């Protein structure tokens, strides 16, 4: 039991991200409503972002903004890499968030178009309408 707690503390973040991702993926595949699917899509994407952010986290480190370097002329105190959180995953995820919101906007526009045409967003009803035509 005493061994288990460190393992859980070390890994639970990754496990929970997997669960979150499964929720999103399930909603994308199995939900009937197109907007619900879009929500699932967004949950899926944020889960991935959570995963990346978890990679970057370091215990005993602070946010990736160098302190006391305002203006930054000349020499600084030595900077220790262990004091700051890894900035690279954050950069990647900023880009990923932007991409996901762009996709989300386009998908919403498409959903509005589908509704204009078929007056429904339920997938089974849409399939029925399509087979009628």
């Amino acid at each position, binding site marked *: 039991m005493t061994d288990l707690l460190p393992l859980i503390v070390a890994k639970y973040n990754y496990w929970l991200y997997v669960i979150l991702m499964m929720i999103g*993926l399930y909603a*994308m595949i199995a939900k009937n409503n*197109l907007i619900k*699917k879009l929500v699932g*899509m967004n949950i*899926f*994407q944020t889960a*991935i972002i959570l*995963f*990346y952010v978890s*990679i970057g986290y370091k215990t005993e480190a602070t946010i990736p903004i160098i302190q006391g370097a305002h203006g930054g002329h000349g020499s600084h105190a030595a900077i220790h890499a262990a004091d700051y959180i890894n900035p*690279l*995953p954050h950069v*990647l995820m900023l*880009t*990923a968030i932007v*991409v996901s919101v*762009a*996709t989300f906007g*386009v*998908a919403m526009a*498409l*959903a509005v*178009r*589908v509704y204009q*045409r*078929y007056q429904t967003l339920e997938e089974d009803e*849409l399939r029925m309408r*399509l087979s009628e035509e």
Partner: protein
Amino acid sequence: MDNYPALIVVAPLLAALFSGIFSWVEERFTYPTALIGMGLSTFSAYKILMRVLDSGTIQYKMAGWLPPMGIEYRIDLLNAMVLMLISSIAFINLIASYRNVEQETNDRKGSFYTIYLLFVTGLIGVTATGDLFNLYVLIEITSLTSYAMVALADKDRGPLASLNYIFIGVIGASFYLLGVGYLYLKTGSLNMVDVAGILSGIEGSSTVLVAFILCMIGIWIKMALFPMHVWLPNAYSYAPVAFARVVAPLMTKVMVYVMIRLMVTVFGLEYIFNTLNLADAVVWLATIAIIAGGIMALSQKNLKKMLTYIIVCEIGYMVGGAWMGNQLGMSGAILHILNDALMTFALFLAVGNMVYKLKKVDFIHLQGLFGKMPWTMAAFVLAAFSIVGVPPTCGFFSKWYLVLGAFEAGAYHFAAALIISSLICAILFFKVFEICFFEPMSEGHGHGDGHGEVAIAEAPVSMLIASGLISISLIATGLFSGTIMNKLILPFLG
């Protein structure tokens, strides 16, 4: 100091932005802007190809930072070939599609060119980049532009097809992103060469295995390998024809390129074929994809739809060849990227000409087309022969390598599938020829006695010239495929 590697992707991007502005201010300027941008890009691609042939791999450091820190463009023989292919096809298509665009998207011409150029930018970037995450961003650009385009032409069914495309496309891209995340966690780097160097020390890791599987599944979804192909036929057949002509030959081929790049450069063939035992399963999957694509193509009643299923079938060839585990198979797959892009482009150019005149290309509308559009049909026949694999055309040679590779690896099922699918393609195209050639005679269309004097109603000259150029290139690549093999592909595979 020369900046061709940057220019090749920046020129179309700049042109896209300028045409985006011009579409609001003065719409007449958008088309020339697009032409200039694409022309510049094609020119740089040519320069790069020559440079790479002369002096080997080019490295271009974006923002001047050393590779693992900054983003690097790393152009070797394979990239240079695919870059040349993409930019020239996009350029020729731009020349050919002026009339199509005017016809299909008349009030949104300017925006069409903007989206088109952004799409090409994405494809070129995907091909040139040497950075795993940059690849993801560029894949998203190509996808986002395709989503918009698919919904644009067919106002009724387009949006729904596009929405389904979004769901599947996002799953694919996200899987790829996850794979990159797993790789990053294990290696701490995103540069392909750097990652490959670190990976060679930790081959047994389960994380790397999962990363590999995720990347591959993501790319397969994006390239529409058989069970994940559901989005492709609808999406490509609803897109405006001027866009379908570039998305159909290029998108899937670029994804095949990405797969080969990941296999060769990042994970290493050694790791894939010796440490993992997945190759047989994937070759079987490719075999099923080929057969299934062929069978589904047989049941179509629309020319565009039929061609999209043939694309699904062709993807099977390339994936199977790449996973054959020997040099013949891999080189056949790479050669088939080139050939298949040209063949599909030729077919879709012909279809574009037909759409321009006929509006719809269900098989019923095609009757008597040999009389009406002789030149277009000549190009179509040549491209069809190439797809089937008739010797002087280029399709034959890549299939030959693939079959040889299959025999060497002992994958007889794959070789059989290749030959069966060629037969299916032959049946398909002869069915189309039959409709185009004979049927009006037997039906005795209500045009009176006009047997020999069907009015010739050809497509505009610009479109015919493009068709002619590509038809010549089909034969030329066929004749020079030995040279291409020896100069580009074999040196790349070492």
